[in-house]
């Protein structure tokens, strides 16, 4: 079990008040708060080691390079990638997915080729593919989700996969429902028809142990800021073999081996895909976040959130006029994300009333409009827990629902 009280002390923001009430931060699906260790690593870099990377023949630049590449190594070990050459730093998961779309997909897909995504995806795993439909005439298909069960209709996967399927895109954990999708089943079936698999791991990497060797996918994208790191740094993991034969998307400094007026040759992996001065301090912050999570233990983080789910789920299900979306019970296939709808109260009103009590939640479409359409909902309210959230905070949230219902006389 996690020592949540000790963990909370390491996150300065958790001791602040909002509207005179202790902050209850339940919007971790959007972004996580940051521990002192992350702030200190970034501060230390800027104070004592700041220089550009991969360039200078001087001490500071060597230190900066070692810290930046050290962060890459931490990420590699954290997700059990085969080598650092497979870890490409991006701005975020969105940019990582777009890098696959603009690079590998544009170079390998032609008109009529099929990309299979799912109804459960975040917009960032839908829109880049829709853009390729427009630009290249690829065909985009959506594997249906089952509204009541809160899961993808995996039984239909075989029917959706054809010899024309070149890429299958699936979220590891839904940002709207908290559903953990059976990625290995997707990989097995997609590979059987010769398709590659791209996994959006934004909500998974921060919350559960993730192992590239066990998953067996081809591309895996995630963001640093949802896993205790800073904004502006994300990761694309991809198989070395694929990266080797993919042309870079951005040209410029650092991504080249040699430039003449006649042309340029590319740098080695992973730098081939990192044109220009990268987000050095962001990567170092992410490295510190990875260290922090490794110290706590991802299995412990996941068990803590499972415990929260077992506590919250039955209580939510018992509230009259409240619908909670996703798998309708606590389950190992469900993370601690709870999206809900209260009849007679719009999610924005719920979020405003909660805010007055210091509770930060998300309301709106959560960048998941196709899934909301499946659910028949214009919007939803969402609470999402993390390693520093407590059962006491869950109670504050559950009591706030009752208070909000009173305000609205329902």
């Amino acid at each position, binding site marked *: 079990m996690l020592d949540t009280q000790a963990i909370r002390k390491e996150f300065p923001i958790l001791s602040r008040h909002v509207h005179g009430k202790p902050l209850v931060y339940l919007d971790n699906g959007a972004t996580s708060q940051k521990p002192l260790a992350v702030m200190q690593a970034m501060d230390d870099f800027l104070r004592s080691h700041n220089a550009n990377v991969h360039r200078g023949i001087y001490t500071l630049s060597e230190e900066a390079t070692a810290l930046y590449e050290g962060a890459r190594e931490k990420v590699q070990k954290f997700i059990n990638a085969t080598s650092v050459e497979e870890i490409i730093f991006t701005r975020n998961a969105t940019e990582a997915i777009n890098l696959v779309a603009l690079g590998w997909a544009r170079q390998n897909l032609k008109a009529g080729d099929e990309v299979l995504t799912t109804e459960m995806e975040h917009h960032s795993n839908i829109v880049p593919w829709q853009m390729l439909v427009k630009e290249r005439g690829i065909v985009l298909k959506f594997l249906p989700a089952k509204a009541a069960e809160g899961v993808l209709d995996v039984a239909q996967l075989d029917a959706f996969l054809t010899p024309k399927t070149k890429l299958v895109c699936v979220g590891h954990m839904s940002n709207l429902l908290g559903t953990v999708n059976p990625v290995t089943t997707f990989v097995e079936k997609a590979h059987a028809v010769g398709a590659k698999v791209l996994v959006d791991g934004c909500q998974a990497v921060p919350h559960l142990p993730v192992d590239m060797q066990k998953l067996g996918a081809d591309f895996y994208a995630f963001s640093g800021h949802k896993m205790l790191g800073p904004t502006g740094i994300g990761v694309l993991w991809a198989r070395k073999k694929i990266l080797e034969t993919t042309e870079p998307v951005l040209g410029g400094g650092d991504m080249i081996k040699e430039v003449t007026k006649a042309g340029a040759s590319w740098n080695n992996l992973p730098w081939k895909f990192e044109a220009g001065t990268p987000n050095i301090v962001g990567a170092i912050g992410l490295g510190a976040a990875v260290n922090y999570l490794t110290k706590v233990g991802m299995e412990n983080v996941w068990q803590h959130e499972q415990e929260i789910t077992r506590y919250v789920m039955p209580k939510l299900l018992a509230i009259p006029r409240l619908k909670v979306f996703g798998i309708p019970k606590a389950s190992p296939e469900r993370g601690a994300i709870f999206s809900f709808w209260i009849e007679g109260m*719009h999610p924005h*009103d719920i979020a*405003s009333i909660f*805010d007055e009590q210091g509770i930060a939640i998300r309301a709106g479409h959560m960048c998941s409009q196709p899934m909301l359409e499946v659910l028949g909902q214009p919007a939803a309210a969402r609470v999402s827990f993390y390693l520093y959230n407590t059962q006491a905070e869950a109670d504050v949230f559950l009591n706030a629902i009752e208070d909000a219902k009173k305000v609205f006389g329902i």
Partner: protein
Amino acid sequence: MYESNLLDHYHHPRNTGKLEPADKHHREPNPLCGDVIEVFLKLDAVGKVADIRWEGSGCAVSQASMSALSEQLVGKSKAELDAMGVTNIEQVLETSINPARLKCATLGLVAVQKALQE
């Protein structure tokens, strides 16, 4: 924000329904939250609002704001309506609107302003 006046307008919205035929009509959605307000206006000989009905769905702030606004519109010219903003809505609702909810509060006003442009 959720004062009794706002909640009263939300639970008992004024001037709802349609005007058919209407001189001016506009449907304004807020794609961020799925709220929508549709306004129907009749104008008098000099182009001032003679009658208004509206229909909509969404949060208490957007729906109550439109309801309260609908009681203030008759007799107003296009120029007068264009000059209105969230402060007018705060006045008629007798509450202040959180910055994060300005778009909700002004959805109905924007619908009316756009209707008059059409």
